[in-house]
């Protein structure tokens, strides 16, 4: 924020004050052509009969270049306005306008609407007050979902953050650190669905002999376990998948923060006779406090919305339901828009504190 563009100077070049005749003609022409091309390509993309390759080609061209042409055209159109003060007043609208419009359409408006739908009935027709919420908290499946979300938050956050921290410290001591780190955060680039397939082979109990975990415990004469169906372990089985995916994230962030601790502090402690454990508890942990907090917040938010893993592994059966999956089922399968919206609002309320803290911090930094 240190400097602002100068909006009224006499160094303004002549070419922008006197709009050339060519510009006067070309810009509207370009605008006309773009509108026609835009309309035509929209038609192609909506047309179910159009040849696939054409649709794909048009889609890529419009999606990749269209946006740049649109910004350029708007800017050129603006330059046609003779008054400079007016021009420079409007210009920020071209820059932030599209972003704000998208944010309002895709996030602000839907949040308001979801809150509204959550107090309407199943078909969003009649006002029902807080009935959807009271139903949600009394319904057995949803109670289980709420309980499971809590398990997920505690389980995933604890293990991935603590695991990430221990790994960060351990990996820091070896020369092949970067390779080891890559191996831990490779799962992060795999989709939840892909991870689901991968873990199916870990947990398989049927067909027999295929699942690694059952083969492993078989060595100790344990009977095969139905890891995804047996109610005493299935939630843990699913949570482990998320831990497997998230630990890499925690490791990367914590490891970067660890390396930022000045080496002489640790060396000085060593010279004074501090053991590795003392260093860990008295130097590393206190220095990483804020980073740990950030990582915890991020993981909690990610876990709160967990959907894909449950959707592909059990679809919430055998008491493995979570809120986001229930929300999807009520919306997509049962078409109960009231209840579904109420469930979404529970998630929104849960992230509200983080939102407020983020906004506060950002304003403080800028102020």
């Amino acid at each position: 924020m240190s400097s602002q563009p100068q909006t009224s100077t006499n160094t303004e070049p002549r070419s922008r004050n006197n709009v050339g005749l060519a510009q006067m003609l070309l810009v509207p022409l370009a605008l006309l052509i773009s509108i026609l091309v835009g309309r035509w390509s929209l038609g192609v993309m909506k047309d179910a009969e159009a040849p696939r390759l054409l649709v794909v080609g048009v889609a890529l061209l419009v999606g990749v270049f269209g946006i740049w042409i649109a910004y350029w055209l708007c800017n050129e159109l603006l330059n046609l306005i003779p008054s400079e003060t007016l021009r420079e007043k409007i210009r920020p609208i071209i820059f932030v306008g599209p972003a704000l419009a998208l944010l309002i359409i895709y996030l602000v408006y839907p949040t308001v609407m979801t809150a509204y739908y959550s107090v309407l009935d199943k078909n969003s027709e009649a006002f029902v007050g807080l009935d959807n919420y009271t139903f949600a908290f009394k319904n057995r499946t949803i109670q289980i979902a709420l309980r499971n979300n809590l398990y997920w938050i505690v389980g995933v956050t604890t293990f991935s953050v603590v695991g990430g921290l221990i790994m960060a410290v351990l990996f820091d001591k070896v020369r092949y650190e970067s390779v080891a780190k890559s191996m831990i955060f490779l799962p992060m680039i795999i989709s939840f669905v892909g991870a689901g397939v991968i873990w199916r082979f870990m947990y398989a109990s049927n067909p027999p002999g295929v699942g690694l975990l059952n083969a492993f415990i078989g060595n100790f004469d344990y009977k095969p376990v139905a890891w995804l169906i047996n109610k005493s372990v299935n939630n843990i089985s699913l949570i482990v998948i998320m831990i497997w995916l998230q630990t890499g994230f925690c490791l990367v962030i914590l490891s970067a923060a660890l390396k930022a601790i000045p080496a002489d502090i640790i060396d000085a402690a060593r010279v004074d006779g501090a053991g590795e454990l003392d260093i860990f508890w008295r130097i590393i942990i206190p220095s990483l406090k804020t980073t740990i907090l950030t990582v915890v917040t991020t993981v909690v938010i990610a876990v709160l919305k967990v959907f894909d893993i449950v959707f592909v592994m059990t679809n919430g059966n055998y008491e493995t339901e979570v809120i986001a999956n229930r929300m999807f089922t009520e919306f997509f399968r049962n078409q109960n828009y009231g209840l579904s919206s109420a469930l979404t609002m529970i998630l929104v309320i849960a992230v509200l504190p983080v939102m407020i803290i983020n906004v506060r911090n950002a304003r403080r930094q800028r102020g």
Partner: protein
Amino acid sequence: MRIQRFFSRSFVHFAVITIAFLWTLPTVGVLVSSFRPENDVKTSGWWNALKHPFEESVWTFKNYSDVINANGIGEAFVNTLVVTIPATILPITVAAFAAYAFAWMKFPGRDWLFAMVIGLMVVPLQVALIPILRLYTQTGIAGTFLGLWLAHTGFGLPLAIYLLYNYISQLPADLIESAKIDGASDFTAFMKIVLPLSTPAIASFAIFQFLWIWNDLLVSLVFLGTNKVLTVKLSELTGSLGNKWHLLTAGAFVSMVVPLAVFFALQRYFVRGLLAGSVKG
């Protein structure tokens, strides 16, 4: 002292190698399985293949050719590309213009609008599903690629603006001011100076957004109807082909090829992106 040191060093090596090995094991298992014949996959654990790794009958490419051609994974791959490329470029473009405006232009309500952007970063995208689907049905873009790109753009924007703003606002003020004194408009300053200098930040976010969309299931499931992307197709296979384990493995790996390539080629930017903005909604 020296002996103690030796033991603690060995312990560290042992721990690191064990952890890395265990973490990779599930993925390796499926990779190995994907090259095994159907019957083997269904009757014995994948580690059995490693007992006779040089016997030809143990390995096959059939799972891949089957899943790509007969089960529509090939088509889903193309769809995923068509979704992902524009849905990565659109938010970057829109966010870059906005980030420039927030950093270097003066307009009423700027600070409030920026606070709104920060606040929206953590809003769960679930809120958008019902209202946007209704909106799309009314306007007739339900089920089109365009609808999906715009949805992904909207959801990715808060983080994109935040990351790019952090970078663009730190560029030296002199650069932009002197360009203006030389008669450059904001548009020219943005295109010729700010954008080229912001490549590292743009690359970080691009990778992030690319992987996020490539791997997304929920948004595509809701907004994309018949043109199925890889994740949707794969999740269907998990259900309908519950007993075709051999196809699932190959399908999973086809869906991972591009993310893996991106990851290995651009790991540096990926890590930087993670470090720059760790709160995503």
